C-alpha cells in the first residue's frame, strides 16, 4: 500500500447521513412523479394537452420535465433541511424503495389501465 492509500478503518468518520437520506427520498419521489404525471396525462385530455411542452415529443415532454423539476426541488429542499443532521434511515429508505417499486409498477400499461 503506498503512502497516499488509506484504510477504511482509519479514515471512516461519523459523517451525518442527512444528505444521503435527502438524495434517496428525493429519488424515490422523483421516480414516483414519472408514473404519477404519466397516469394523469393518460387519464385526462386536458392535462395531456397541458403536458405538451415540445410538440414533436408530445405529452412525454411535459411528464418527464415536470417529474425532473419535482425531483430536483424535493432534493434541494430535503438537502437544505437534513444535510447536517443524522436522520433515521430505516423509514426513509423504506418509503423511498416503496415509491421506486410503485413507479416501476405504475408505468406498466396494463396496470395503468386498471385505473
Amino acid at each position, binding site marked *: 500500500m503506498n503512502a497516499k492509500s488509506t484504510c*477504511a478503518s482509519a479514515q471512516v468518520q461519523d459523517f451525518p447521513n442527512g444528505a444521503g437520506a435527502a438524495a434517496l427520498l428525493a429519488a424515490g419521489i422523483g421516480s414516483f412523479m414519472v408514473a404519477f404525471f404519466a397516469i394523469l396525462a393518460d387519464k385526462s385530455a386536458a392535462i395531456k394537452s397541458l403536458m405538451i411542452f415540445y410538440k414533436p415529443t408530445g405529452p412525454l415532454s411535459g411528464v418527464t420535465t415536470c417529474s425532473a423539476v419535482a425531483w430536483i426541488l424535493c432534493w434541494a429542499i430535503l438537502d437544505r433541511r437534513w444535510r447536517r443532521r443524522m436522520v433515521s434511515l430505516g423509514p426513509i429508505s423504506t418509503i423511498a424503495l416503496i415509491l421506486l417499486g410503485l413507479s416501476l409498477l405504475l408505468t406498466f400499461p396494463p396496470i395503468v389501465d386498471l385505473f
Partner: protein
Amino acid sequence: MDEFNRTRGQAMEITVRSLLTLLHGMGFGALYLLACSGAIVELYRRYSPGSLRPIEVQDERFLGAYLVGMAILAWLAVLSGTYFIYPWYRAVPPAGTTNLAAFPQRLLMASPTTVAWHAIGMEWKEHVAWLVPISITMAAAVFIRHGRNLTRHPQLRNAVLCFVFVSFVAAGIAGFFGAMLDKYAPVQGGQNIQLMSGEKP
C-alpha cells in the same frame, strides 16, 4: 472471400436516423447496462459493513467517477431517446399514405399482431427509462458525498444498491423493447451515410 468479390461495387449505407437510433441504443443504453454489473458488484462487495479489504483512496475515486460516467450515459440515453428518436417514431403520416415504413408507430398500430409492441412496449419503455437517470444520479451523488462512510451506514448503502439494481432492471426493460420495436418497425429516414464502398469489378 468469394462473397466479398461478388459484392464489390456495392456500398454499405446507413441513414442518419438509423445511426442516431444505434447510438442511443447500442452506444448509451447498452453501455449503461454493461456498466451496471460493475457498480453493483463493487457497491455490494467493497462497501459492505463486514468488508475485510480496506478501501483505498484510488478505489473510492474510481467508483465515484464510474458512477458519474454511468449517470452521464443514462441522461444521454433518455434525452436522445425522448427528443430525437421518439419524435421520428411517433411522426404522423399525411392523409392517404399507404406505405407506413417511415412512420413506425403507425406501422405497428396498423396490424393486430404488432399493435401491442406499441401499446405495451413503447408506452412502458418511454416512462420506465426515466427511472434510470434519476436512480443513478442519486447513487453517484450519495457516493461522492459519503464515499467509504457508506460502510458505516449499511441501510443507506443497501438502499443505494437497490436503486442501482432497479435502474438496471428499468434499463433492461427499455433496452429489450427498444430492440424489439426497432426489429418490427425501425426508425428510418434522413440522409444516407456511406460507411463503406467497394470498387467496381
